[in-house]
């Protein structure tokens, strides 16, 4: 069990790693070019895994609705946006704001699709997230960060 928990944690680390690497590529090229390479290299890698492991066309992939194929184009914008943002606002702010947006919009989507869920938990969860976003965007008081830097006691 603990090994699977570590694997799930690693998956999260790798999401951050990928965003950091793509951000570095965008720094030398452009956000869209970094998104292109991310998709192409990812495609080649997954193709290789599929060749080795098989099962790419298992089940009935042809039965998916047409809009399910829009994940790729959306992903292009998603990766480009992340690569553009990370050198500008930092990795932590990028990650946490994306998480905030994903979670909040996930609740909206669930409600639109009529998915069952606990209303109280949804309200509390979204309010906590919005409070976090509010604090992230509030301007720090002038000079605060500077005084913090100089409070180191001199010998």
């Amino acid at each position, binding site marked *: 069990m603990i090994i699977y928990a570590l694997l799930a944690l690693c998956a999260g680390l790798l999401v951050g790693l990928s965003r950091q690497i793509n951000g570095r590529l965008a720094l030398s090229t452009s956000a869209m070019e970094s998104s292109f390479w991310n998709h192409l290299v990812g495609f080649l890698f997954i193709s290789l895994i599929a060749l080795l492991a098989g099962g790419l066309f298992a089940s009935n992939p042809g039965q998916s609705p047409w809009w399910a194929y829009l994940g790729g184009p959306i992903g292009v914008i998603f990766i480009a946006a992340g690569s553009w943002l990370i050198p500008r606002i930092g990795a*932590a*702010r990028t990650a946490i704001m994306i998480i905030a947006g994903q979670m909040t919009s996930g609740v909206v989507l669930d409600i639109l699709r009529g998915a069952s869920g606990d209303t109280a938990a949804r309200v509390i969860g979204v309010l906590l997230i919005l409070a976090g976003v509010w604090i992230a965007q509030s301007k720090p008081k002038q000079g605060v960060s500077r005084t913090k830097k100089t409070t180191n006691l001199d010998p």
Partner: protein
Amino acid sequence: MTDRSTPPNLPHLLAAFGTGALLTLMVLCNGTLAAHGSLLFASWVPHLTGSAVALALLFLLRPKRTQQKRPPIWAYLGGVSGGVTVMLTSATMNTALALSGTIALGLAGQVIFSLFADIRGLFGLPRQMPALREYISLALILAGSLILIFFGGSA
């Protein structure tokens, strides 16, 4: 390379929040593909269509390269990290962790990596020290996300 946290920029933060909403749509699309086909297929297809769309956008928009100097070769490997992520999550989703545990640990992994990446300036991106307000914002957003994942029924 700043040592201090850069001041928050509201348009950038909102853009990151919106990027998170894109992720919800992407998960909906790719999840629908996975429901009809295999998880490998649901990752392979968006990488294929994404490569094509990104290439078309590169030709249409012709974004300027920000630097003449070539980026290091590892900067092109962000897509591999993304591919491994798919494999890890597909392994952990079917254990006792389920989807909610996989998502929750994945969020934790992302946050840990991004904080470390900012503090050390990993992979040639600007180094910055997250301020106290960022840790508070991060704690609120994570708390809200965990409530949504485990009690909101959105997973």
